[in-house]
């Protein structure tokens, strides 16, 4: 089960004025592990240039920052009005069941960009048919 449509999510981010400000100058590869599904997000100079919904084994290891967790935890994060401590990525890691890792300096420098990615994901999540 997928919670996002990679193509529409990428367009939504690249058309989001707040994300574009927060992500300025950002060159990075981010990995989102949502249950069994992996997404590799590539950014170049502050723009999302690709979201690969099925990265191969070698690409799967090549990232600057990773956020992973069971699908149920991502669903809590992406609720329209999230429950306490799932309003953003950081509390969902500190007090919830998501995990992150990688270059923490990048995480701090682009903290708002990460938060905005979650907010855009929340408003563009795929609902079960």
């Amino acid at each position, binding site marked *: 089960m997928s919670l996002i449509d990679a193509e529409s999510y990428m367009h939504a981010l690249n058309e989001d004025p707040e994300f574009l400000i927060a992500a300025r100058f950002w060159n990075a590869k981010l990995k989102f592990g949502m249950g069994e599904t992996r997404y590799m997000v590539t950014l170049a100079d502050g723009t999302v240039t690709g979201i690969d919904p099925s990265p191969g084994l070698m690409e799967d290891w090549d990232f600057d920052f990773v956020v992973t967790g069971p699908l149920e935890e991502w669903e809590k994060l992406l609720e329209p*009005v999230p429950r*306490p*401590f799932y*309003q953003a990525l950081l509390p969902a890691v500190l*007090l919830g069941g998501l995990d992150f890792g990688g270059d923490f*300096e990048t995480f*701090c420098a682009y*903290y*708002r960009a990460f*938060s905005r990615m979650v907010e855009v994901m929340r408003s563009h999540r795929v609902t079960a048919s």
Partner: protein
Amino acid sequence: MARFDDITGRYIYLDVDGLEYRVYFEENGSGVPLLLQHTAGSDCRLWRHLLVDPEVAGRFQMIAYDIPYHGKSLPPAGHKWWAEEYKLTQDFLMKFVVTLSRELGFERPAYMGCSIGGQLAPDLALYYPDEFRAVVGIESAHFTPGLNQRWLYHPRINSEFNSNIAYDMMGPASPEERKRETCWCYSQAAPQVVKGALNYHCVEHNLVGKADRIDTSKVAVYLLTGEYDFSCPPMLTELLANDIKGSRFTVIEGMGHFPMSEDPVRFKKYIMPVLEEILEL
């Protein structure tokens, strides 16, 4: 015709531990003196909505101040503060507020603070019980060990990081404009101030084994915490309240770490019953 705000801003000179501080405060209202303490790295603007509330201003003389290094209150005169790392200490903060209160001529005012100000509420009740008639702690706990503070003041991370964390500490349904204003005030802190102020909040403040010595017959204690505050979850405040016999604890539903600025309209519904009780003390 010009439209003026009801708030008046002033400066006062205070001597604390042999150093002179030029301190900014904003005031409005008349009645029982009520000192209002901001959060780490921010300033008295967080209280601006309460300050102009006519129902509160009609019964309280509200004083919202900037502690040194914050807002418009500069570092001390005659001291090479630029050659040392800023670290707010518990001893200084308590002395500062008591000195301000005395210099303003107050006798047993009420005190209300959030975050570092919330931690200060029970500390004042424990160490200066004769100085205040009531303390209101918003987002208080026995202790709150923080995030890895290295990143809060780092040459490669700008201070936008601190205000962006503040945004995520608020309730998702609080008004967007109020949340952004709260973050704006945060983003204006000098780079080292948030980390320095959290020295008190995350390192020095610790009421484990002490909170039960607070005597609420001398100073009333009210504790309120936002449901979404992940830096001080309500459960931690409840544990503190359980240790302070006679204190009252309230969860502020839907809000996070900055109730008075992130949703002042809904905050008033929670704080008015507390203020009504303080008027009766």
